[in-house]
Structure formats: C-alpha cells, structure tokens
C-alpha cells in the first residue's frame, strides 16, 4: 500500500562534496569504543571492568534507571580502558579487539513466529533496544510503554544525506526482518516513509505501511511525517528507528548475532573522495581520517551538518552515525560582510543575497556564524522551514523560560530537537534553537516524566 505525503515549505541546502555511490571497506582497526554520551538521558552503570574479555554482544553497561536496557560490545576483545570526564561521567568504554570476532549467540529465530515479549526480550538482551527512540523527547524507548505506532523514515533530506536505498541495497532481508520485529512491538502500525525515487527498491517491504514523501528538507525528518499520518497527543508514545538500525535489528533475528555493521557516507569538501565506507559501530576512525581527509582547517561532524556533533580526528564511530561530514572551519573576518547583495557565495533563505537566482548551485558553506547572536526581531522566517501545525517561535520562547504548561499546549510532544535544525540555520538572530529545545525536553523529563 502506498500513500503520498506532501510537505510544503522547508529548504534544501545543496552542498558540495556529496558522496558518490561507491562502498569501500576499510580494514578494521583494533581499537573500538562505545560512548555513553551518544545516548541522551542515559545514566550508564558499568557491567565490565578493565581487562575483562568480552564477545561481540556481551553487555558493557546498562541504564541505571531501566536496568533491562543494555548496551553491548560491537566486537570481541579485551576492555582496554574506561575513560571518565568531569564528575566521573563515563565517556568511553574502549575495547582492544581480537583479530577474529567471536559472537555471543542469541539464537536464530523466525521473527514472524515470535510474540511481542519474545521480540522485546531479544532486543533488550542483545543491546539492540537503544536503536529504538521514543517520542516525546527523542530518547531511547521505554520498554514498558506501548507505542501507538512506529515510524521509520528512509527519505533522507538533510544536506549531504546518505542514500538509504543505496545503503540498504544488500540488506533487504535484514531490513524486512527488522520491520517485522518492530511490527510486533506496537498495537498500531509500522510506517515507512520513502522518497519517490526509491519506491521500486522498497516495494519488497511487508508488515508496514509505506508512504511516499515529497518535499524539501525537513520532509525527511520523521516528526513531520508523524504529524501528517498519526500526530502525537499528550500522553501518547511513538517510536522511531533509523533504517540502518532496522537492518541491524533484522540481522539479530536472522543470524542470532549482534552485527553492528554500518555503511557510513563520507561527504563534504574536506573529504578527498566522498563515498561510502562499510564500518563497524565504535571503530576508531583516526587511520581512516588520515587517509581520506584533506589537510587543512576542517571540522569533522558525525551526523549531518545541521544536527550532527563535532568530533575529533582521533574518535570512534558513533552509535547512530549514517554520515560523517567534513566542512571548512569559518574563523575568518568579512569586511562589511553584512552589506546586502554582497557575499553571494553564501546561501540564504532571505533574498538579501543573489544566491537564490542560482538554485542548482552547490555551496561550500563553512562554519562561520555569519553574524552574532541578537534579540528575536524578524518574524515569519521560522515558520517557513517548519512545516507542521506548531508555532515554532512561540514554542521556543516558552522553552527559553521553562514554561512547561505552555510548551505542552504548543506541541513540545510532537517535535524533536533535530526538527529545529533548519531554524538554527535560517534564523536571523542566530538563536540556538536545537539546544534550547533539547534543554527544555530535559526539563520536561525531570518535571513531567
């Protein structure tokens, strides 16, 4: 069954350095690490200590508040180090991998014949549970609630996006098994949003409602699809899963192993040959970066350039990564750079640049803020990139003052911080909208739960 979702408004940001459709494998390194800060809202409790030996799939740590949620090793090896930050916060659990990976066996299973509890138990046991995220608040799902539906968006509209149909080309079976597994977890439906060009590829999908999504970014963000199909009301839960993670979940049932393989798009002008790499969650990236990145003052972003995280050269592949973008740093001055119709190499939603006249041009945007933070003056620009029946500026203002009741009224349960990424990008006042919303959600979790 295929239905269409048309999302108007929004903005595609065409950047240079898109990854070409080629997957290279990279000889695995020996250094791996799982990073608890990847999981927002997690208070990790360690299950291992330094020098312990683990198989792939063995528990490294679990959530202190919901102990059944476990986080497991992507490879087998020895716990090499546990790094802590301020207040003894655990930053990384590092593993020195064995040459040949040995897996903990969770048992193969025909997922179609399992019931909800069996699926849930397997996902929790194997460490695949944290791949499931929950709305409201965009945190990992609480296994004790019933989601009214589950959403997967395989339509990727972020700048320099990884193409999910390409990434999943050899994992159809795993993806299907994952979808079936997810369909067991909800009384409602699993909904899959796809781009029009991928309709043929995803025609194999069963056990899910497939929607074709049309529109500019943020049409690919799952929130906007949820709002169109099955909006979240106060007190309801909706779960979302990233397409690659669906395949990892599927592999668990097909092979009985936790296989944390990811195909990650390397993109941006800081990459010599932008393309995809087949990697393993937690793998150290320094060697790969040294080989593939251009020398110079660049910023490496794990995730997309709108809502990803800045990482260092010596870091590990993050848990949910689909892309790694490398873009130029922008610590330069621009003489009278604010003058209208000057600096037309910059992209803008406003027409104070001539850049809108060349819609097909691809930009090499850097990390310059292009101004300074200011009071909120301009109105109407946030709504242009927020295609949902929510007033983004009013919601942000309520979030700034932690006004919980107002946030509830204005739709905080329906949004995720990433939905505000384009507002970060476009707003004239250089407001940090994603940070404000994330902070507000933390307040909500604490006060409302």
């Amino acid at each position, binding site marked *: 069954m295929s239905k269409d979702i048309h999302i108007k408004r929004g903005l595609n940001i065409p950047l240079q350095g898109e990854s070409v459709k080629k997957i290279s494998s990279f000889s695995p390194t020996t250094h791996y690490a799982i990073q608890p800060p990847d999981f927002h809202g997690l208070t990790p409790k360690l299950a291992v200590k330094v020098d312990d030996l683990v198989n792939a799939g063995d528990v490294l740590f679990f959530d202190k508040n919901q102990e059944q949620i476990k986080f497991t090793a992507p490879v087998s090896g020895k716990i090499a180090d546990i790094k802590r930050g301020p207040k003894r916060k655990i930053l990384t659990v590092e593993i020195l991998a064995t040459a040949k990976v040995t897996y903990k066996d969770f048992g193969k299973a025909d997922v179609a014949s399992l019931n909800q509890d069996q699926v849930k138990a397997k996902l929790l046991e194997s460490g695949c549970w944290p791949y499931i995220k929950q709305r409201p608040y965009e945190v990992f799902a609480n296994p004790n609630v019933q989601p009214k539906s589950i959403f997967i968006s395989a339509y990727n509209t972020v700048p320099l996006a990884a193409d999910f149909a390409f990434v999943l080309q050899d994992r159809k079976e795993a993806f299907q098994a994952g979808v079936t597994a997810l369909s067991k977890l909800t009384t409602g439906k699993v909904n899959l949003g796809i781009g029009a060009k991928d309709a043929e590829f995803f025609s194999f999908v069963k056990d899910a409602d497939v929607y074709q999504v049309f529109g500019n970014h943020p049409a690919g963000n799952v929130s906007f699809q949820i709002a169109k199909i099955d909006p979240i009301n106060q007190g309801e839960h909706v779960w979302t899963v990233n397409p690659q993670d669906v395949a990892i979940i599927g592999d668990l049932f097909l092979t009985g192993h936790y296989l944390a393989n990811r195909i990650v798009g390397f993109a941006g002008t800081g990459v010599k040959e932008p393309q995809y790499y087949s990697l393993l969650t937690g793998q150290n990236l320094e060697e790969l970066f040294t080989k593939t990145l251009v020398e110079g003052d660049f910023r490496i972003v794990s995730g997309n350039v709108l809502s990803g995280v800045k990482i260092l050269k010596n870091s590990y592949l993050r848990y949910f990564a689909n892309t790694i973008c490398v873009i130029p740093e922008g610590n330069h001055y621009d003489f009278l750079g604010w003058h209208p119709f000057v600096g037309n190499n910059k992209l803008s939603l406003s027409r104070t640049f001539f850049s809108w006249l060349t819609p097909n041009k691809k930009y090499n945007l850097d990390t310059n*803020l292009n101004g300074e933070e200011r009071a909120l003056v301009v109105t109407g620009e946030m709504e242009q990139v927020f295609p949902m029946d929510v007033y983004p500026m009013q919601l942000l203002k309520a979030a700034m003052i932690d006004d919980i009741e107002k946030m509830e009224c204005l739709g905080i349960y329906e949004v995720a911080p990433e939905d505000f990424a384009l507002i970060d990008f476009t707003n004239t006042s250089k407001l940090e909208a994603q940070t404000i919303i994330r902070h507000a959600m933390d307040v909500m979790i604490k006060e409302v739960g």
Partner: protein
Amino acid sequence: MKFLRKKLDNIKPNFERGGKFEKFAPAFFAIDSFLFVPNHTTKTGAHIRDGVDLKRVMYTVILALLPALFFGMWNVGYQHFSQIGGDLSFLHLLGYGATKVLPMVIVSYAVGLGIEFLFAIKRGHEVNEGYLVTGMLIPLIMPVELPLWMLALSVAFAVILGKEVFGGTGMNVLNPALLARAFAFFSYAPYMSGDQVWVADAAKVDAISGETILGHLASGHEITSHSVMDMFMGYIPGSIGETSVLMILIGAALLLYTGVASWRIMLSAVLGASVMGLIFNTFAVNPIMAFPWWQQMLVGGFAFGVVFMATDPVSSAQTTTGKWIYGFFIGIFAIMIRVFNSAYPEGVMLAILLMNVFAPTIDYFVIQGNIKRRKNRLKKLVKVA
C-alpha cells in the same frame, strides 16, 4: 583591509575581560562587528548558518528608505523655492534640502545611538542594530521645520521609554519611531501640525503656504491646487519622507523582493484602507469623506506608514494569520481617524500605534486557535477510547 583588521586586533585586548577599557567592550565590539562580520564559528546546533544577520536585514531597510530620503531632500527645496521663486535646478534644490534634512538625520542618530551605546555599556550586552532603522525613520516622518532640540527630545523619549525600559531591541511594544513622532505631536503640537511647518521658512515668509492635503481637506476644502500626479510623485508639502508614493513604492519593492518586510501586512492594510475609503465615499457628507478612496492612499503618511512602520516585525503581529488581521485594521483605522477626527488628520500614526498595542492580543487568539486544535484532537481520542 588587512591593515585595519590588524589595528583592531591590536587594540582589542584592551576591551576584553581584564583589559583597560573592559567597560567599553560593547562599544568597541559594535564598531568592530560593523566593520567586519566577526570570525565567530558555530559552537552548538547547526554547523552551517544562513548568510543573513540582523545587520543585513536592518541595512536592507535603510537602503529601501534612501529613495524617500533623497526625494524628501529635493522636495524640501522644491516646496520652498517653487513658492518664493528662485533657482529650481535639481542640485540646488537637493543641496538646499540637504542643509535642512541632514542635521535632523545626524541629531537622530547621535542621540539615539548614544543612548543605545550607554545602555549596552551599562548592561554589558551587545549593541543591537534596531536603532539603525529607527534613526533614519524618525527624521523622515517629521516636518522639516521641527527644531532640532525637539527632535532630540523625541528621540530620547522614544528610545528610553519606548524601547530600553522594555529591555531593548526586540522587546518593545510600540514602534519607537512612531512613538517619537507621537511624543512630538502631543508635546509640541504647533510645530507638528498646521500650515506653517511643512515647508521650510513657511512661518517666516508670507508668500509661502504649506498646508498639507489632508489639512486642507479636514478644514472643509476640496483639493484644487494639486493634481493626483503631484500626490503620487510627491510634489506636495508633508513630512520629509512621506510625500512621494513612487519613492516609497521603490522602497517597498526592495523590501518585498528581499522578503525583509511582510507582504501580508502591506496588502491587508491597503485592503483595509480601501474598504474604509469606499464606505466613506458611499456616505460622503464632506470633502474629506468624498475624497476618492484610492487617493486617500496617495496622501499623508499612509504609504510610508504601511510600508515602513506597520511592517516593523517587533511591534507588529507575529503570526501569519495575525499579520492579516493587524494590517487590515491599520488600514481601517488610518482612514477612519483621518475622517472622523479633523484635529488629527494624520491617522496612520495613531492607527499603527493602536494596532501595535493590540498585536499581542491578536497573536494570543491566533495561537489559542492552534492550542484548541491540539486539545480537540486529544479530546476526540479520549472519546473514542
């Protein structure tokens, strides 16, 4: 420019924390960031940002005001010399106008920016760019004969009580430029209305008559001395920047093209004024009611007010639906005040100020609509369950 950058970088440490002139940091950084868009990079949130910033937006509005400013200067000369006779060459008129208008612009910026800098230094925050536009608007909506000290006082009143007490740029309820005009209007009425203030030296030279069209109509006379073309082109007495609808339209075109000003507000205000004008035309009992509805929009401050003041994003409605309502009522009230209250032939100023006050209420009801939709969705669900 490297030389300038180097110089600034050399003296910068004096203004940073612990430096000799730490207190004056906001002033220094205001000038520094005026000359150079700073090298700040994104820290949290999106790693790339739109090229636009508040300076660019504000400066776009100033660019849009320039045609009206230059025409205003020329017209000051034209109104003066066409009545007493003399050299009517373009440059002579413009030059004469400049000697009258530029001092007003300078006083407006000096007083206003001075106060803004003081508040920024006192509060230790950055100087916002809001006053760049206000400072240009204020002289353009004043009569040319307004004494400079009155202008300075109006500016000070508007900036301090209209804006800074509310927290500065972005927080004000009323449009500061209009507040300055309202202050002058009610405090120094003889200098803000009548037939002796709109043309330079009208009070001193008997041969000069400087009544505005609206003043003329309000006193019960029909317009015979000026053609419709005069009104459109702006060859009429009036506040410095308000007379030429053509120049204002050029500015409006820039604002609409760049998307800096709301087309919804402009359009709905014109619609509101048309509706009100048509109603008055239908039931006309005096010359100002009989004045054709479309000509209402060519005279007085209507065009200038609707294009440059009603669209001020801070004091106008913020929601899309709200903008339609807000603009429409500005149009209605502007014409209504003109017609009903002959003591205030300039209805636009009061109409916009009035709607500034109501803008948050309009937004409140629009947003309540959104909240209600959300609650209804939930209610339906509970019923089904």
